[in-house]
């Protein structure tokens, strides 16, 4: 590939990066405005019966002064330096806590995305090859039923069957009571099955694949005896899969809040739940921003794959609007 051919790609990537940066600034403004508009603040909860002077002291110690845009700039400057403030409940720095539990959520989210894809891809490929027939209709139906399952109930059922009915406690817990790897697998499986996106993933992949299979270049490939799969892979599989992953990451993060709650999983979702209970502003704010960064990173990755794979991307002006 000549160097000049890379220029439009580099240009596009720069634009995507700029767009992502701009969106993250927008995210920080939205989060800040929500918390700024909130009636009262966490300190009024903490200091309910204290003297007013104490409140002033605590607020000043927490850096709470000036006009709202002044506070926003200070706040943003702190965040850029990695200072997300300290949790009102535990007094620990928020960023460190989020990084600590964020790894667990990342593992849970990516793992369950993989489980979802493992279920959805075969169903989608089968029905895009043969159309909806009497034989694969039950599988499509199965995808729909699974997507409508309330994830919290499925968690309980799984816990009931694995722990109580089959008495699999010895497998889950080692002799010294430490949890074994299989107990990390259960939440991933449950969230992967019942995160409510399976039917949409099937639908998207199936639509895209059958559209591509009807294209002229696939017919040409078939006519000259080349592999249809190899020709359809990029446009009919790789792009839709990355598209749907990027589009469904926020949804799965939401499901993670529920699943982490049931399984006592030490992740961001559980932390968000606790913070919402306590009105722990710095924590919930940090989590919202961390989640948005995660979502934008996935979207950016999807765009990169799209630009790399699709030679027409550099001629396109309009951005894709998600799945």
């Amino acid at each position: 590939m000549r160097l000049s051919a890379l220029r439009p790609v580099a240009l596009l990537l720069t634009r995507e990066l700029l767009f992502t940066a701009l969106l993250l600034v927008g995210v920080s403004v939205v989060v800040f405005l929500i918390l700024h508009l909130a009636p009262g603040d966490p300190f009024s909860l903490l200091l309910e019966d204290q003297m007013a002077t104490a409140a002033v002291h605590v607020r000043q110690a927490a850096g709470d002064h000036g006009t709202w845009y002044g506070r926003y700039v200070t706040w943003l400057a702190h965040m850029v330096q990695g200072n997300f403030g300290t949790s009102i409940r535990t007094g620990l720095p928020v960023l460190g806590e989020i990084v600590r539990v964020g790894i667990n959520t990342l593992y849970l989210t990516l793992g369950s995305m993989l489980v979802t894809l493992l279920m959805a891809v075969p169903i989608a490929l089968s029905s895009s090859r043969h159309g909806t027939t009497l034989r694969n209709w039950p599988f499509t139906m199965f995808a729909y039923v699974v997507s409508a399952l309330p994830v919290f109930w499925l968690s309980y059922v799984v816990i009931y069957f694995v722990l109580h009915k089959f008495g699999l406690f010895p497998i889950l817990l080692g002799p010294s009571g430490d949890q074994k790897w299989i107990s990390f697998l259960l939440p991933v499986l449950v969230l992967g099955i019942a995160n409510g996106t399976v039917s949409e993933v099937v639908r998207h992949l199936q639509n895209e694949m059958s559209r591509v299979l009807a294209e002229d270049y696939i017919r040409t490939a078939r006519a000259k005896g080349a592999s249809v799969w190899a020709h359809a892979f990029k446009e009919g599989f790789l792009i839709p899969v990355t598209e749907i992953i990027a589009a469904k990451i926020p949804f799965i993060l939401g499901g993670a809040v529920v699943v982490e709650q049931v399984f006592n999983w030490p992740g961001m979702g559980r932390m968000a739940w606790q913070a919402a209970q306590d009105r722990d502003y710095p924590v919930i704010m940090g989590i919202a921003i961390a989640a948005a960064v995660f979502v934008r990173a996935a979207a950016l990755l999807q765009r990169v794959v799209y630009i790399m794979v699709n030679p027409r991307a550099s001629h396109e002006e309009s951005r894709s609007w998600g799945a």
Partner: protein
Amino acid sequence: MGRMKLYRQPSRQGYELGRLALLRAAAPWDLICVGYGLGIALLVVLSYILGALRLFPYDPQEMDLALMMARPGVGGHLLGTDFMGRDILSRLILGTQAYFLPGLLGITIALGAGTLLGVLAGYHGRTTDRAVTFAVNLIDSFPRLVLILLMIAAFKPGIYYIMVVVGITNVPTVASLIRGKIQFLRDKSFIEAAVAIGLNARTIILKHILWYNCRSLLIIQATLGMAEAILIETSLSYLGFGVQEPAPSWGNMVLSGANYLLQGKFWLSTTPALAILVTILGFHLLGDGLNNILEVGGKK
């Protein structure tokens, strides 16, 4: 009169098929899906009306300590009783109150704001399109449940305000669909003709684009929106931020029954869970079935 309408060929709408022919051309499973979905939707509306009129088999709040956790069918309780001896069927019926009207509010906001943004982005120039793209991507950056938890921490809002947030988070989907449709239709000859005979932009957008060509799309999004409203409401009630005991919601019924599930009394949480499953499934199938029949089938 209704029959006459069925046979009318709405040729100026750009359909090649009449309504009845559209049904005849539809795949049988799509019809099954739509039929099932319509049945469920009807059941939800009926439950809502029954709940509003306070017509229940039993009083949903009345405790019967002699009949705690009765199995389905015992003592005249069709679906059994919960851990306080309250009739589960009556509580399921009353539980539709928790999401039905708030869900409609969320749908209205999503459709209204989404259509507005979609029309602006699709019909107007590039600058508007970019601004709308930015706004839509900004909304899409937040996981919905995290945004709602942020709202709960900040405002302690009621279910209606939460559904406003849900509606806003659904705006991107509707906006992108409307935008795509308008960009597809903009160069069609019937729009050019409408411009040529001097119709103003408002008539063209409202009548010829939105009413004739985006109607079915909006109905489909409305049914999918109801499924999402149920999902959010039950999840929040399950997490303890929604409807509080003793008022029933399908979410908190699953939660309060879950402890007894581990004791083998499965129907306490399984019945509301099945209600959630069957209802969300119904709205999904209704939306996707209608989509296959009206949008995909109508174009062929």
